[in-house]
């Protein structure tokens, strides 16, 4: 009797089987807005890539392919780019897409109140030639401009103006913060900020749909253990990310699969190079050894990256040799070896630089920004101790970390960098160029690394149309940065997603989850 009762109870409690094409997924962060021009953050842009589209888009291998523009060509000798727009594209509300929407979206996305305006810094003027043609002029020749606007999403002019959302409003929100009207494969059918967002396929989509989803729902789940449980119990079909320490265990479970890849983010160590003295540790106040390239090189040799990857990353990451990963455009094949782990070599370099007896300094590290960041810093600390230099590790939440870095409160620090343009020029501009607020250069170069040749190469790289010549300059930059050990690139961060085993999808290195590549079996 008792057994029959509990069986009946179990049957009653178990959810009714859902249609196979219902797809539910969970991530740690809810996109904070549905406005594609309000903020420039990966959770927002990644999510909205399913809803809005740009003139170009990125394919499964990150390559640029036509989207709302069918083709594009340089104007004259590099004065700008001309885009030919796709015919017969409609927004979710049924209105037609044309050049006016592109012009409007340019004005909206480049306006003073938009966080995406830095994408349009090279743009001098946007001209509407006719309803299907748009010309974007740049102040200097800009070979990678089409690559740099893959996340610039086009919004319907009439819809935005009717709903008084002609400009984004991040601070107070407006109609476009909660509602969408794009041209993408999916439209948002319900939106409860922080709780759930529901999507349905856009029937009038211009491209052929390869997915078989009829309804999709995104729920943010902050707690990693809860997300894993939700995946195991089948309440969600996919979670991103899977905690690295759970990946191996999940792999062996029935009903779920782990999808692993390499993210675009390179994790590296940076140094206070413009500081005259050390700020932390027993040697605070003494001259700063990290101004000497030999000391920086010694650090690179002392860090056993393979050991870090094996123990902390559980074999999920790959070593990095330069500021970008091999998947990025402009990666330097010629400089793809990182300094070998060599304790004696490191000691010899330190002795040569006059630090045979070592020294003590401060290492700053975030503890909730990158995968296992604090553990990596602890490992680095003990590896450096073996060559005689003592790091005083100070790990903190990322909310406190950036202000510390901005205030130059470090001798050495940990940084991860994912190039927004997926091009090797990006980290040179932000991390290697001499900081210059006016020219908006080196804004993340906290250590103040400075090299005249790099500063001279950067504008040339930015305006070189010829691919071969451009790559030669990128190679030269990579070589300089390696020789001077401007940073110590350690590894490319892994990407670990978990899905039910009846789901097939594509994982892209930018960690964007693209719904139109999902199939439910």
């Amino acid at each position: 009797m008792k057994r029959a009762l509990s069986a009946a109870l179990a049957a009653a409690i178990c959810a009714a089987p859902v249609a196979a094409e219902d797809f539910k997924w969970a991530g740690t962060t809810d996109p904070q807005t549905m406005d594609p021009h309000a903020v420039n953050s990966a959770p927002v842009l990644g999510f909205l890539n399913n809803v809005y589209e740009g003139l170009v888009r990125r394919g499964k291998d990150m390559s640029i392919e036509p989207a709302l523009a069918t083709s594009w060509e340089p104007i004259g000798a590099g004065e700008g780019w001309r885009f030919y727009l796709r015919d017969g594209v409609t927004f979710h509300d049924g209105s037609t897409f044309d050049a006016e929407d592109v012009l409007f979206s340019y004005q909206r996305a480049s306006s003073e109140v938009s966080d995406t305006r830095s994408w349009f810094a090279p743009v001098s003027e946007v001209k509407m030639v006719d309803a299907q043609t748009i010309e974007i002029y740049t102040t200097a020749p800009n070979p990678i401009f089409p690559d740099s606007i893959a996340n610039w999403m086009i919004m319907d002019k009439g819809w935005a103006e009717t709903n008084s959302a002609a400009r984004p409003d991040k601070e107070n929100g407006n109609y476009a913060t909660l509602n969408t009207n794009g041209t993408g494969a999916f439209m948002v059918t319900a939106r409860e900020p922080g709780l759930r967002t529901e999507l349905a396929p856009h029937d009038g989509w211009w491209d052929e749909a390869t997915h078989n989803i009829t309804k999709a729902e995104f729920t943010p789940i902050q707690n990693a253990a809860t997300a894993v449980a939700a995946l195991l119990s089948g309440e969600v079909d996919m979670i991103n990310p899977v905690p690295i320490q759970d990946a191996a265990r999940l792999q062996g479970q029935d009903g779920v699969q782990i999808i692993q890849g390499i993210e675009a983010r390179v994790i590296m160590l940076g140094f206070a190079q413009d500081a005259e003295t050390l700020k932390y540790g027993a040697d605070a106040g003494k001259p700063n050894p990290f101004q000497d390239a030999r000391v920086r090189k010694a650090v690179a040799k002392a860090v056993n990256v393979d050991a870090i990857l094996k123990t902390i990353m559980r074999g999920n990451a790959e070593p990095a040799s330069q500021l970008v990963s091999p998947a990025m455009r402009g990666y330097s094949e010629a400089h793809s070896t990182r300094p070998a782990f060599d304790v004696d070599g490191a000691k010899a370099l330190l002795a040569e630089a006059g630090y045979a007896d070592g020294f003590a300094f401060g290492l700053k590290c975030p503890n909730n920004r990158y995968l296992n960041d604090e553990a990596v810093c602890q490992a680095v600390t003990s590896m450096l101790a073996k060559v005689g230099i003592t790091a005083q590790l100070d790990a903190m939440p990322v909310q406190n970390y950036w202000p510390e870095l901005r205030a130059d409160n470090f001798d050495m620090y940990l940084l991860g960098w994912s190039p927004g343009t997926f091009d090797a020029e990006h980290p040179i501009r932000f991390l290697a160029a001499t900081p210059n607020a006016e020219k908006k250069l080196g804004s993340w170069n906290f250590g103040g690394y400075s090299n005249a040749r790099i500063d001279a190469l950067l504008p040339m790289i930015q305006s070189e149309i010829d691919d071969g010549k451009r790559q030669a300059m990128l190679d030269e930059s990579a070589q300089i940065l390696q020789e001077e050990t401007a940073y110590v690139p350690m590894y490319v961060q892994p990407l670990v997603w978990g899905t039910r085993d009846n789901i097939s999808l594509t994982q892209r290195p930018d960690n964007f989850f693209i719904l139109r590549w999902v199939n439910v079996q």
Partner: protein
Amino acid sequence: MLTYVIKRVLQSALVLLIVGLVAFSMFRFVGDPIDNLLGQERTDADIARLRVELGLDQPFPVQYYKFLEGAVQGDFGVSYRQGRPVGEILLERAPATLELAAVSGFLAISIGIGLGVFTAIRKDGFLANAIMSISLIGVSLPTFLIGILLIYVFAVELGWLPSFGRGDVVQFGWWSTGLLTASGLKAIVLPAITLGLYQMTLIMRLVRSEMLEVLRQDYVRFARARGLKARTVNFRHALKNTLVPVITVTGLQLGSIIAFAIITETVFQWPGVGLLFINAIQFVDIPVMAAYLMLISVMFVAINLIVDLLYFAIDPRLRTDGKGAH
């Protein structure tokens, strides 16, 4: 009487003001909201501009004053993260937390009293001893662990109950309830147990010791001697007399159930104000943090004030307004 009430209310207001001041002085240690608001390609000029725009360049007493100025007019500012009025967000999230608190409070009281009486009557029984031992788990295991444990047993292994969320809700004006749908009822079971377990154990142990005390009293023995049924003696005469301290403790615990819902809500992704607060800390969403902390302190202060006023009503010695007191 009136002087006493006024005095207590003024004291409460002062406590609230101080709590707010302490909270505002702490916010800069939580971190800097700027980096979450601006993307990778921000410049130093953007950072400076936004800091001025949000009033973060002002010293914290000024920020606090501005917050108070808005708060007394019912305006808690706009969430940095969501770009919506904080008052609106709190109203949206409050029903989830209040329902969870109510259900777990109900479970804690009913099960706690029942088990308390049982373990007192069967003082030396095997089952009673077992319950007492097991109840130690309720006080010694952290909420987080209990929640995860329940999820793995009932959601992952047995698949009976959902592991996260609130299920479907029904909207009544601004109030949303999950108690009227099957999925909502299923969803509340695990979080309510997790949240109420500590209180349940507390009430059970309190009832048990009070019962043991009362059962030794003469009037219980006389009642038994009169030949009254055991049930009547235990529940009508004994239990009634144990309830006074239980009610006091339960009242005071109500506040902490709501306040400590933070952890339970995080484990079960329960869309209440606690989860909102955790999120706000992560993104240094100062307006949300400020409003939440103020609301929670208002609640605690109000409960204490009510308790004080009740004592005043009950205890005649407090009522003399100082005249003739020795």
